[in-house]
């Protein structure tokens, strides 16, 4: 048994974002972080490792600087990592991305009692598509929005959150589970872990390494293999500048209430 966790390095959108003149995102000028939901996926994996002793490997697709994130994850406790990186993979939409990641996971090898974890969604795209699409490409079942996980032999029981409650789902391994923040609180790196992180293996999987996998086909990866295309990207017009009311006393509040009443908002 082993656990594979898919993670993504993302621009920190909680800060200020930078937009190029052509409307695309200026990634170079932004801080990067490990996608928050992915941290919960890593924690879920490390918890299972604590319980069972199984190894945990982090897998990411991204440019070479993503290595720093993988080192951090190994400092947290991951036993090894894989960086899926190559020019041929650039411009991939979610379909092509999951195709490539599925090929990478398949190359690493998925066995009968393995579990794959992903975060629910990445904060840069907010699509929540790559997890389910990897599962489909690998022909394994998925459970999304996991808020509680228990492994018992070759089944996993998951509490899957809905908007108005939850479902308890029993799924056979190998399976893919996407994690939400309610699942756990991610641990910190340990000092020993930071030292150890440099001894742990990081394998780069480039196009050459994956091209013979049945899932990889030049026509289904990268920009040319992506079913979706961006037609336009644009910034919405700024709403007309609002009005700052003077002061912050009772008179100010009365003024505001009378405006709202006048405009029939009350």
């Amino acid at each position, binding site marked *: 048994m082993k656990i594979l966790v898919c993670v993504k390095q993302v621009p920190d959108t909680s800060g200020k974002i930078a937009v190029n003149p052509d409307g695309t995102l200026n990634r170079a000028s932004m801080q990067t972080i490990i996608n928050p939901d992915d941290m919960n996926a890593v924690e879920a994996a490390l918890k299972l490792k604590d319980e069972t002793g199984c190894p945990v490997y982090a897998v990411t697709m991204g440019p070479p600087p993503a290595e720093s994130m993988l080192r951090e994850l190994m400092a947290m406790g991951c036993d090894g990592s894989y960086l899926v990186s190559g020019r041929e993979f650039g411009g991939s939409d979610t379909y092509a991305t999951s195709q490539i990641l599925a090929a990478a996971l398949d190359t690493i090898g998925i066995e009968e009692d393995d579990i794959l974890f992903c975060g629910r969604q990445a904060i840069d795209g*907010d699509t929540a598509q790559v997890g389910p699409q990897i599962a489909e490409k690998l022909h394994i079942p998925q459970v999304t929005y996991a808020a509680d996980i228990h492994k018992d032999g070759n089944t996993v029981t998951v509490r899957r959150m809905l908007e108005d409650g939850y479902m308890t789902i029993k799924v056979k391994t190998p399976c893919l589970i996407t994690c939400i923040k309610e699942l756990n609180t991610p641990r910190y790196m340990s000092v020993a872990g930071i030292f150890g992180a440099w001894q742990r293996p990081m394998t780069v999987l480039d196009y050459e390494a994956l091209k013979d996998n049945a899932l990889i086909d030049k026509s289904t990866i990268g920009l040319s293999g992506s079913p979706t295309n961006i037609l336009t*990207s644009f910034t919405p017009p700024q709403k007309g500048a609002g009005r700052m009311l003077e002061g*912050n006393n009772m008179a100010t509040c009365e003024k505001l209430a009378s405006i709202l009443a006048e405009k029939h908002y009350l």
Partner: protein
Amino acid sequence: MNMILSNPDYDSTNLEEFKNIWVFCEQRGGQMMPTTYELISEGRKLADQLGVKLCGLLLGENVDGLAKDLGGYGADEVILCEHPLLKTYTTDAYAKVICDTISWMKPEVFLIGATNIGRDLGPRCAARLHTGLCADCTHLDIDLDLYKAFLHEASTLPAERIDGLGTAKVLGKDHDISRDLKMTRPAFGGNLMASIICPRFRPAMATVRPGVLKKAAYDEAKAKAISVTRFSVELSEDDLATEVLEVVKAAKKLVDLVGADYVVSVGRGISTDVEGGIKLAEELADVLGGVVGGSRVAIDSGWLTSDHQVGQTGKTVHPKVYVALGISGSIQHQAGMKESECIVAVNKNEGAPIFDIADYGICGDLFKVTPMLIEAVKAAKAAK
């Protein structure tokens, strides 16, 4: 698990074989999810733009009684798939039946509500059908002139750029976009919008954010005229690798943010007195006749449960009045509330981005201002 399409000749690149607009009609426990009617209403407009039929795809067990209302909101036809294994949603069973149905009947557009279930199902189906899916859309167009009109209003793109739209470069060739579904969604928390097309594959698939599209007026005549086509479902236990042990409805009544006319939200500003801050927000919401929401900080810090979250990762609200108490107004928060009719912000920090989009701003301590605001609103309402 059986993931092989039942139609062996299915080819998602044979664009001319695909016709009609389909909507996935999500029901839970025999109750239609409200967002389905929003999608049907929108789908009606898109079908009229293309001059094709609008079909609702309905899965479940003994759910044929739901077909009529789908007609009432604009569907011409309901494709009904009934089977005991479809009673409760499982990814395996639903994806199989939906993909098989699509592989035979070939719609050119397939819309799904971006609920927790829709976002589980959509990507799985798109991957199996080898087509594109655009997640969490907030606006849809097919007609090019309508799309241009939308851009003129909702974007800062230069007018000549918008008027010149007609083709897109796809694999180095000019592709005519007039019949493509233009799927618009916020990216990066709504600071950037993107319109996506799926030019080479069908169906073009989109999940659509609940609460964003408007429900049409109910048409009794159309409801009576609905035609129902049964699709014979091939499904067995062997197709399922998952088993639903139980479905539990939340005991606590969840807050109805999306339908509320008044939302009073709290953010980081209440951190010095969380209980007191929430109490003030509740009082103001009560006086206004609304509900309490929260920013991501308020939910991540555990001050409010996630059903209260407004923003890109939470809910999109468009109340008459939105009051932001101690919320700085990150782009991710704005994505969920900037369509409110009137935005009121109270914040200590004069430079908070929330003031850029607020109709009325008060720079001050929310713990001092809110009690006064409650009194002032009470008085103004009493005076009416």
